[in-house]
């Protein structure tokens, strides 16, 4: 468990309750977060997005966190956002923290850690779980692919050949080839398939068909 500001994460000493909005896309996770927070005495839990009402913290999923940060860029005093997710790859963590979310917690965390994280973020602190910090540090050594390389990578991960990738992106096969070569280097992989495996581990491409 990693905390940037220990004091702010401790249970409140008599101050008011924390107003939490839980807006999570996974129905079981949403119900679970609400139930666990309600079992703590210092939370006032609301389901769904805050809809203009004042809350101290919003607990959401990965996509929700990134969307919230981009839509609130112009708001004066937006509530802090805690992401609870099963996305545990370095790239996904960097995307969310880069967008400006205040906390990042993995879904398999304990009740205790969830409550600490919500208190911490609601109190103005930042919070990342232990494994999250580790993945983040690991990913700092990785060179990010360019936008074009990412496009090539997505198609490559679907099993397309260079010629087909070229046709899909409107570029020549030779250009695709050099993008693939650059990707193999950045992913430290000897073969195309090994590169896809490593890209999935880093979270650059989805590891599987999404369940929704």
């Amino acid at each position, binding site marked *: 468990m990693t905390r940037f500001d220990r004091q702010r994460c401790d249970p409140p000493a008599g101050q008011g309750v924390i107003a939490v909005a839980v807006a999570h896309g996974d129905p079981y996770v949403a119900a679970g977060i*609400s139930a666990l927070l309600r079992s703590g005495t210092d939370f006032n839990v609301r389901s769904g997005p805050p809809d203009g009402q004042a809350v101290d913290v919003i607990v959401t999923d990965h996509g929700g966190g990134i969307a919230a940060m981009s839509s609130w860029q112009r708001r004066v005093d937006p509530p802090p956002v805690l992401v609870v997710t*099963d996305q545990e790859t370095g790239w996904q963590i960097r995307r969310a923290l880069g967008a400006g979310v205040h906390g990042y917690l993995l*879904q398999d*965390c304990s009740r205790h850690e969830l409550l600490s994280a919500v208190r911490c973020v609601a109190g103005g602190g930042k919070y990342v779980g232990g494994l999250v910090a580790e993945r983040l540090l690991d990913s700092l050594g990785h060179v990010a692919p360019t936008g074009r390389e990412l496009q090539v990578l997505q198609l490559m991960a679907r099993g397309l050949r260079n010629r087909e990738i070229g046709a899909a992106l409107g570029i020549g096969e030779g250009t695709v080839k050099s993008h693939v070569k650059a990707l193999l280097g950045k992913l430290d992989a000897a073969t195309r398939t090994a590169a896809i495996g490593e890209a999935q581990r880093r979270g650059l491409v989805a590891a599987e*068909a999404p369940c929704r």
Partner: protein
Amino acid sequence: MTPHARLRIAVRHDEDIVAAGLAGIIARQADFELVGHDDAQVAVADVRSALRLLAEMSGQERAGRMRVIAIARAAREAEIARAIDAGVSGYLLHDAAPDELAAAIRHAARGGAPHLSRGAMAAVHGSLPVHLTPREADVLQFVVQGECNKAIARRLAISASTVKAHVANISGKLHAGSRTQVAVAATRRGLVGVQGPGHGVGAVP
């Protein structure tokens, strides 16, 4: 069971948050009662726990047995098939709304055929089951890891041309046009143990 008795349901999930969510959803149903799994008629569990519960009951008569519903994060055809073979009464992804979960529990308690949620159904439909020989399965494992034929041949102590023939057969069975497509299809369908972190059966804890 008397007509007005409530259904006794146990929850087993390796994630605190999901366990609390499932318990909360079940507790809201007037005809459900949360109990420990020793006394339950239906257990709702993550895939690994579901398989373990079913294995523990393998000696018992099917009629009086506790029914088990598996809750999975990812839809992989081979994992779903394995769970159904093991005797699950339902396979729900996180796409199933609370009402569907409650309906699946009642259906399981009545002894109905396994209920699959929409995403799980989509994963098993539209593709015939793939039967690989044990040797093909060995080769596939290495193909997915990105090994070339020569390296695979060395590891399995067979010739490169034999590996090539295996790969061609696997491609045919998976309707894949290239080596990479073989790896993509095999991973998506759950035919190999290698998978993204934190998902499904046998994943890292």
